[in-house]
């Protein structure tokens, strides 16, 4: 890999001079129980090559059989994207040699995809709240995933310089849907945000459909980013680069930004952009060149003769249409109205990935404001620390709802509630388990509190005098001492009330 860093034009200059055009190809790994063309299980993380059979290993003589559930998922994605579902379509072989391809061809679809056309509206966050952009869809097609190669030894972990390579075919044959946009024009400086918002919306869509868990970091949703620049909207498209291996929403945004800056520097310097595949590097935030068009493979597509054409009947498509859930955008609008939050707050909720947990917490009886406070506050902070999404924290929305209820009933203070949540996150059980085990309970016996207040006053005689003398602000010191003595289990407001009454001072 070249060590020479790419020249970059400052982003503002780049988008002032050039008009970026985007194209996004998103691969969604379907969450079907079995693979695209065989009966092997698809679970993530099994020991290498344990989820294989003659078909997904491409053994001589083996044959594919189409997974009907995968086709249903593809059709439902197509319907949700407002695509036309092909009444007749075929699989095709994409021929190229690579060790992680068991057959040295991939069964895919070429000029006869299952879903054609369509669109997806995305809300692009701006300082003034979300702006709606319609992204036109070119097609969605079905294909099988390849195996996974890891290169052992050597310095780079790449194939060059490795001592040897290991191939795991567990992933080979897992069904993928590739969704390709039409060129996305007119985004200007917001191109990176549009790309990110599109991928996020598509992710929400496939999750709402229940067809994929769409975890980018596990590779079950992957994005290839095409970027080209032109001098202005009336100019023909420039030469594009295709950046692969973009594995997070943040990377999608960064990769687009990087390519705009890199290509702008090339063009501004009088150079020509090379049509090539580039690789995104999460760690460095750079793209590096892969295959150029001159080296590009001729995939020699032809109709897969081992499979018969697919002809989804009108009845079947209509039946699948009836299974479509509420679309994410409609759901967001509904929840925003229900919760009475601003556009800006809603944008924060969505960005934090907290929509599902908050909705579920509210469904479990919590007040929307309280639910939002937890998921966007304490829990967002912990998730950030742990580098996971809030939805992945080991706490159920029902637990959060229970904590909210305990606070509302006065059984817990905010401080205690945070300790309960800590306990749940630490795996100590449900909120009630944690309360019982840790003995977390508001001390609501006034006699006990008064005894603690007297002790604190005795230890802080000077402060007591000041308070009596009218310096009510000094009460905080005594309240603090009482809270400490009760291990935080007292209601601070009540302590203050009792303290002032004891000293004969009015608050």
């Amino acid at each position, binding site marked *: 890999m070249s060590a020479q860093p790419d020249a970059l034009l400052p982003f503002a200059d780049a988008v002032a001079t050039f008009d970026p055009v985007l194209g996004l190809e998103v691969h969604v790994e379907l969450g079907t129980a079995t693979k695209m063309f065989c009966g092997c299980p698809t679970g993530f993380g099994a020991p290498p090559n344990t989820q294989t059979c003659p078909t997904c290993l491409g053994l001589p003589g083996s044959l594919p059989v189409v997974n009907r559930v995968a086709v249903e998922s593809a059709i439902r994605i197509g319907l949700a994207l407002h695509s036309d579902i092909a009444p007749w379509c075929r699989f095709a072989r994409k*021929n190229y*040699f690579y060790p992680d391809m068991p057959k040295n061809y991939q069964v895919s679809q070429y000029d006869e995809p299952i879903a054609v056309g369509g669109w997806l509206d995305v809300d692009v966050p701006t300082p003034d709240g979300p702006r709606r952009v319609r992204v036109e869809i070119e097609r969605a097609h079905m294909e099988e995933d390849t195996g996974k190669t890891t290169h052992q030894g050597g310095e780079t972990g790449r194939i060059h310089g490795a001592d040897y390579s290991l191939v795991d075919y567990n992933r080979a044959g897992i069904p993928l849907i590739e969704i390709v946009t039409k060129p996305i024009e007119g985004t200007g400086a917001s191109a990176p945000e549009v790309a990110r918002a599109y991928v996020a919306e598509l992710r929400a869509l496939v999750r709402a459909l229940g067809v994929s868990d769409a975890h980018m970091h596990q590779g079950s949703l992957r994005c290839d980013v095409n970027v080209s620049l032109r001098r202005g909207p009336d100019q023909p498209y420039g030469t594009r680069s295709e950046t692969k291996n973009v594995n997070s929403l943040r990377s999608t945004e960064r990769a687009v930004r990087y390519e705009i800056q890199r290509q702008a520097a090339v063009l501004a310097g009088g150079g020509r952009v090379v049509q090539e595949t580039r690789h995104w590097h999460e760690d460095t935030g750079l793209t590096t060149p892969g295959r150029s068009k001159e080296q590009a493979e001729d995939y020699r597509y032809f109709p897969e*003769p081992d499979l018969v054409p697919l002809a989804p009947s009108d009845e079947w498509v209509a039946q699948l249409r009836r299974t479509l859930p509420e679309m994410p955008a409609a759901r967001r609008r509904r929840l925003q109205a229900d919760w009475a939050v601003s556009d800006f707050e809603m944008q924060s909720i969505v960005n934090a990935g907290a929509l599902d947990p908050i909705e579920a917490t509210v469904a479990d009886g919590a007040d929307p404001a309280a639910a939002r406070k937890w998921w966007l506050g304490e829990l967002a902070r912990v998730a950030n620390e742990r580098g996971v999404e809030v939805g992945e924290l080991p706490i159920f929305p029902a637990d959060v709802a229970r904590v909210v209820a305990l606070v509302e009933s006065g059984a817990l203070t905010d401080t205690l509630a945070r300790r309960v949540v800590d306990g749940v996150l630490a795996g100590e059980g449900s909120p009630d388990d944690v309360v019982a085990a840790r003995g977390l309970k508001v001390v609501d016996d006034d006699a006990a509190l008064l005894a603690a207040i007297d002790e604190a006053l005795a230890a802080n005689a000077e402060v007591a005098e000041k308070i009596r003398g009218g310096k009510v602000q000094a009460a905080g010191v005594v309240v603090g001492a009482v809270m400490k003595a009760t291990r935080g289990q007292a209601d601070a407001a009540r302590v203050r009330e009792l303290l002032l009454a004891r000293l004969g001072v009015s608050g």
Partner: protein
Amino acid sequence: MAQPADLTRLTAHDLATAVAAGEVSAVEVAQAHLDRISAVDEAVHAFLHVDTDGALAAARAVDAARAAGERLGPLAGVPLGLKDVLTMQGVPTTCGSRILEGWRPAYDATVTRRLKESGVVILGKTNMDEFAMGSSTEHSAYGPTHNPWDLERIPGGSGGGSAAAVAAFEAPLAIGTDTGGSIRQPAAVTGTVGVKPTYGGVSRYGLVALASSLDQAGPCARTVLDAALLHEVIGGHDPHDSTSIDAPVPPVVEAARRADVRGLRVGVVRELSGAGYQVGVQQRFDEAVALLEELGAEVVEVSCPHFTYALAAYYLILPSECSSNLARFDGIRYGLRAGDDGVRSVEEVMSTTRAAGFGDEAIRRIILGTYALSAGYYDAYYGSAQKVRTLITGDFRAAFEQADVLVSPTAPTTAFRLGEKLADPLAMYLNDVATIPANLAGIPGLSLPVGLAPEDGLPVGLQVMAPVLADDRLYRVGAALETALLDRWGRPLLEEAPSL
């Protein structure tokens, strides 16, 4: 009670009957054939691998089942040779290629599984042209098979091993596969019966693909009834093969027993005779057609004008599919690996392996197919060939409006000499000119012996073709002709072959 030495001369039907009746044990039958293989296969070379232990174990299981009073299948205890292009768990499967040397499949082909479940005793794997590419079995990486009628001549191909094994009495039955004539042409030149069923009639699961849209496994036998019995065992829908037809096996055994052509319209294909056909082949064919007429068939002439383009279309479609099907043989997962010296890259090891593992004919067709599918050439080559395929299917449809079955000589010549056409691929390809149209259209075809060519004393085959899923008509016509010819000759044609 038959003596073991005679067992190899019995038909599959008679053997199965004798085993079922307890007149002979399946082990005795298997041993007799294993002995015959030991005696003659050094000269014939029909087998690439003889599975002595497996065959005897399978035979013992049949005997045990009979002893336990279990109902036996119609071919239980009958020995069979399996073309080395079908997988059999744990038994070497080479497809006649160096590149698969040492590979022992982890699974049974559906055909293999059905044979085992029926109590058929698989003797071993039969020789073939590499990956079923050829018409002479000379393209086997393990040396050619010799025609039992004349060891200096070819046994046809690609399934020369299966046909020769049956003709040499090494097995009463064999499985072949037919992509452009690889069952029928070997049957014709060895004086045996071979059937290519309707495409989709027999599962391709476990059949190592040459051209997926053309390949079809089928029976090789010495009688039409034996072929029908085997057809019934291996045929029928298989959920592991998407292209397998979800319909019952046509009533082939019933048709073979009926052996009646009265009132049947037999169409002689004008384009499959005359120029290019050996005089003796044409003569025996014409006599057989006359015999059918005597038997009560109505003979008509039909024309299939697009057959002229069949060979050209076939040699675009086949190499295209084959170039992709054979891509998986790269030394990474199984079979031969060449050039893995720790220095070469994975791509270099793949290409070194392929260069070392594939023979000339395989490489020729891979290159042809890669070219035909390339960007810019696809429409002109693969695309046009598919259009021709549609036209040929249309020719058949029209012809089957005038006739219930079509007939032609199976191959234009009798068995040629080993080496005679090896240097001239085009001459070799012309052997399949009469058999290829049926593969392109997916229809069934049968070849049966109709005599010896006067000029060289070698067997001549007649081909019967029928519409999709009308495989039973092949057996009606085949059995009727077979019976009438046997009456005329007094003994089976194979009795005329020199003893080995």
